[in-house]
């Protein structure tokens, strides 16, 4: 009888119920309804700073430009001693006659 029983088990395995399309749809509907909401991917709307960073070509570039601007303002207001001497030199009358961009008049005169 045991062999017959194994035969019967094999038939039962082949005869197993198969899910209908309706059952499959019900189960998938449950899955959709129960899917954890907090984990769903939400694409955030870009804010002001994100938009500005995009305009400048990225956050890194924006940070660099911002730092340079702040540094310029600080140097302008504080005017450290070293910088003062340089600016004094540039503003001196003795430099009034210095030609940083000499013309070619002198060369023409020699001819």
């Amino acid at each position, binding site marked *: 009888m045991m062999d017959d029983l194994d035969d019967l088990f094999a038939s*039962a395995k082949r005869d197993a119920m198969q899910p209908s399309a309706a*059952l499959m749809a019900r*189960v998938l509907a449950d899955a959709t309804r129960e899917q*954890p909401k907090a*984990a769903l991917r939400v694409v955030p709307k870009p804010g002001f700073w994100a938009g500005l960073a995009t305009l400048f070509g990225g956050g890194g570039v924006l940070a660099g430009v911002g730092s340079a601007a702040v540094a310029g303002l600080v140097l302008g207001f504080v005017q450290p001693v070293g910088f003062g001497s340089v600016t004094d030199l540039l503003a001196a009358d003795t430099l009034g006659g210095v030609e940083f961009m000499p013309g070619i008049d002198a060369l023409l005169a020699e001819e």
Partner: protein
Amino acid sequence: MPRDSLAEVPDEALLVLYANGDPEAARLLTTRLLPRVLGYAGRLLADRTEAEDVAQEAMLRLWRQASEWRQGEAKVSTWVYRVVSNLCTDRLRARQRRRSDALDDVPEPADGAASAVAGMIEADRMAALDAALASLPDRQREAVVLRHIEGMSNPEIAEILQIGVEAVESLTARGKRALAAILSGQRAALGYEEAE
């Protein structure tokens, strides 16, 4: 994630993907698990409508468990089979209670297995098997179906039924002997010649 790339992904990882919002993971898990779950419930309950209800309920509990799933503790399929076993046990006990309540009003007592055996001439082989399985104690029936029809290993069954492997071996052996005893007088109705 595209379906092809998920085909080889284990059930546990699919459940995590589902919890993270991947709709394709749910579809693939359903395709893998629902036929097995329904087949198991169908064999235990021998009733398609009830089996579908149980299968849907078991899958629903899986979806609800997804976000709290602890990887490495149990296989997804084992967990779902355990849920189906419990749900089927509840339904079979409720069925027995209804039957015994109804029999209080009937003067002629009837035994489920005996009734089925009496009707064997008209029954097909699967109905005979279902009737014989129904006459087994819950644990024996579950162990026999999982071992001999679902094709699971004894350690897997032990995990599903939350008992030891030796207990599983004992249950399946006793269950099979009991089935053989019930069905031995019904060889002709089962399609086996008496002369074999």
